[in-house]
């Protein structure tokens, strides 16, 4: 129900019924990702996270499922690490990476 300035939006008319499994799944996956961010480092933690979200959301082709996690991870890594010069945690890969 879209009221003046409430958070509901027009798209709600198209949205499906609430799925607790997907909701909890999304939260859980994100929580695990954030927890693993420092210890595992960005490069190791992100691809599985993206893959899990893609799976939970559904509707992605299998080729997308395979490629997207890595493409997005690398694109973001390059942007943040080399573009913005932000020290992204490398986790156990620290010292091994050539840069």
């Amino acid at each position: 129900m879209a009221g003046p300035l409430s958070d509901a939006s027009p798209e709600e008319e198209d949205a499906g019924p609430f799925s607790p499994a997907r909701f909890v799944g999304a939260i859980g996956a994100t929580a695990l990702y954030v927890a693993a961010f420092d210890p595992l480092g960005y490069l190791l933690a992100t691809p599985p996270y993206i893959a899990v979200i893609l799976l939970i959301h559904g509707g992605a082709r299998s080729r997308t499922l395979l490629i997207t996690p890595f493409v997005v991870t690398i694109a973001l890594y390059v942007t943040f690490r080399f573009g913005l010069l932000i020290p992204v945690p490398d986790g156990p890969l620290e010292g091994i990476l050539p840069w």
Partner: protein
Amino acid sequence: MGFLEHLFAGFVSALSGYGVLIMAAGVAWGIVGGAIPGISGAVAMALALPFTFALDAPTALILLAGVWAGANYGGSIPAILMRMPGTPASAACLLDGYVLAQQGKAAKALGVSLICGTIGALISIVVLIALVLPLGEIVVHFGSPETFALALFGLTLIAGLSGPSFLKGIASGFFGLLLTTVGLDTLTGSMRFTFESAELLTGIDTISVMIGLFAVSEMFYLIAHPARPTGKVVTGRTGTAFPNFRELREVGRATFVGTIVGLVVGIMPGAGATASSFVAYNEARRWSKRPELFGKGSLEGVAAPETANNAVQGGDLVPTLALGIPGSNSAAIMLAALLLHGIMPGPFLLTKHPELVFTLFAGLVIVNLLMIPVGIVILRLCLLALKLDPPVLIASILALIVIGTYAGDLFVLNPVQALIFGVIGYGMRIWGFSAAATVLGIVLGVLAESELRRSLIISHGEWSIFVTRPVCAVLLFLTLGVLLYPAFMTALRHWRARRVAAAPAAKS
């Protein structure tokens, strides 16, 4: 050398050598940095600081000016396209911007943000250049009581953000206020709500919480409510039509309001771009010919906040250049650049280094003009991103949010806050509370609480300070007026109706 000669020399200096290239690079960097959720204008400028060592002082300043200008716009891009404020100052524009995007008018909203923002910035810079010294004299008269009154005035917007339930809106606002109390308190040194944890001493991270409440909750919503395969949800966002002249004329009033608000709030120390954007939104709605459209896709609802948050640039630089005291975090970085180049900022900057200041003035004008072409290019690139499949887009946005919120302070608790407030935001949405009211409470609550307490220390506990100081009294009176106006109008209507009902009876 006269004023105009100085200014002319400033332009010559800014445009010489690689100046234009450097400024354009700064603008691009700023837009990208601002667009990345979690990286604010100040952070983007700080990241550019190492590059300024190789440049001379004037060039360093115009580079940073470019980053600053770019970031003011950049934050609105994800706000409009994905309900994700890139910088805290762009939170207000998502209220209507995201709705517009879903109506297929994303490019119109982005165009308005860019064009109106640039207009606001340019006007505020002209005011700065013309009046920096006199304004520097009056800025010290805007103290804690005035800032408190302004914050209170801004908080009246909660009424407008509440949606159907006013009570829930107030509760949401109070929740925001409560959140701002977490952490080490500046005024007493005591630790509030920190639960023995060193990490919580800093309090909540505003941008992470905003991103959580608005964007993460939206992502969770989209995941938890699988859209029916009509494809409507996706195509709604890819409209690439820019605003036409008629639409730009229609937002003229809102742009004007935004500029005034930005100028006034910018000069007030303590209140910055974020506060000004919300106050401008509120005022634009109040003075709009079509207030009922706000929240449902009003271009004015994008024009006003975006103009305001750009128009604070001039105001922030008033104390910065006239007194050597930064008016905002972004201005602080410019001062840092000066210090690192061996130049001492302070009341004598204008007289001791006029060429530097006037080059900066020229640079500020040029970078805001450069915003239009650079902004349009980056805008088109971002619009392309929306053509991605929904699952890919959502997963990428979530990944971007995690690393983005981490990047600003390099603090793992930031993404955690984004996550937690994502869940809270979702709950608020389902149960009719207003995340926007909470964000307003956070943004203005910090100011309101600390300035109220500080005002009372200054006045030795006398509450009369709020009415004996003219500016403060005026603002408080306006706040009262705004709150009582609806009730007053209703009463007036009732009274008039009764008179009309009584009149024919009296006649017969």
